[in-house]
């Protein structure tokens, strides 16, 4: 048991070390490597995006199967549609409000343990994903590789969902449900802050 626990700790440290390693930058393909990295870092650079995407994972884990994988599948697909609109310059009104509202609504759904039918949950997540995708699409830096940038931010989004799901699995423990609801409350509070910033 102790051995297994040590192994897990060593594995966790190794993963953290691997993820925090700086870039080698030996021979970067001009534009390409930075495109992937820029795309990957883009969702992580805005706390409003991070909160909403982690909340999707939290809510999916709280709802259980099939939501645990339907929501993280629906989000990037619909987000990509939003990104497509952003690329094409199609205006979507109230992007910042939509992103802040996504954190409030998804956080509140986790905090109050709302359990709608899976279709309703997927539609709600999909609706908010459009705002996030549009923001990503319009903010594509000039000169970057579009494919690598897209892949980077889709992968980062998926990783944030996975983190949310990982935290969400705590609800199986006796005290986990309260932790999860507290996390939902924190996400909603963050959303309120970003909404206030958007309005002000």
């Amino acid at each position, binding site marked *: 048991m102790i051995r297994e626990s040590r192994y897990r700790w060593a594995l966790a440290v190794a993963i953290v070390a691997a993820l925090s390693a700086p870039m080698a930058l030996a*021979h970067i*393909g001009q534009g390409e490597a930075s495109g992937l990295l820029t795309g990957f870092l883009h969702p992580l650079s805005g706390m409003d995006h991070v909160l909403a995407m982690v909340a999707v994972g939290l809510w999916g884990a709280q709802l259980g199967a099939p939501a645990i*994988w339907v929501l*993280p*599948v629906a989000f*990037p*697909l619909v*987000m*990509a*549609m939003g*990104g*497509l*609109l*952003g*690329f*094409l*310059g199609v205006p979507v009104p109230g992007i910042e409000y939509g992103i802040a509202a996504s954190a409030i609504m998804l956080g509140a759904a986790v905090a109050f343990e709302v359990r709608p039918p899976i279709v309703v949950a997927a539609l709600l997540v999909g609706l908010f994903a459009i705002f996030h995708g549009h923001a990503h*699409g319009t903010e*594509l830096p000039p000169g970057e590789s*579009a*494919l*690598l940038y*897209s*892949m980077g931010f*889709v*992968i980062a989004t*998926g990783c944030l969902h996975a983190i949310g799901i990982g935290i969400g699995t705590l609800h199986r423990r006796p005290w986990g449900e309260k932790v999860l609801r507290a996390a939902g409350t924190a996400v909603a509070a963050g959303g309120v802050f970003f909404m206030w910033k958007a309005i002000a």
Partner: protein
Amino acid sequence: MTGASASRFFRAMALLVAALACGSAEAHLNATGMGPIYDGLIHFLTSPEDLVPALGLALLAGLRGAEYGRRALCTLPAGWLVGTLAGFTATSASAGSFWASLWFLLLGALVVFDVKISLRALTVLSGFLGLVHGFLNGSGMGFSVATIVVALGLATAASILVVLATAFVVRLRVHWARVAVRVGGSWIAASGLLMLGWSMRGICADSAVKSCA
């Protein structure tokens, strides 16, 4: 000098001579190149627009089972080779990213929904994927012995990817692991959708420039 120390001395001298006589390592073969077979292999493995659709096909075949994997292993590299050889006749490639984005979308969607396609459909799909991407790879390369070897490198890389990815997915029996593969499909489809938007923006910008001119 005793026999043992003389032996050590000669061994040390031999080692010194060997160390001094060695050629340069040329770890970064910018000047010399890596040879056409590696050019083909590396082109495939470092081009996400080629790599990801092939990966998507391998995931799809893996979800369907070993027989589908074996079929993809036969048809995709063969199609890629034929397509590349056919591409030698074209002088330049166009709309490569547009085609790639369509493949991303199609194969990603098939993986997400775990579509139970027939073996015949997979055969057609993999052959066509190989032909299209091979043609795009071969366009503008020109016909020579070296480019034929490049084509072989491309087909080899495609076959390696199909073998590894398909074998990995076929072995997955746990439900959540298969779901994880399908989530990977959603990432492929989402990237394709974004890439399509990028391609369309480029097409719109080109047409706007032409109309201004």
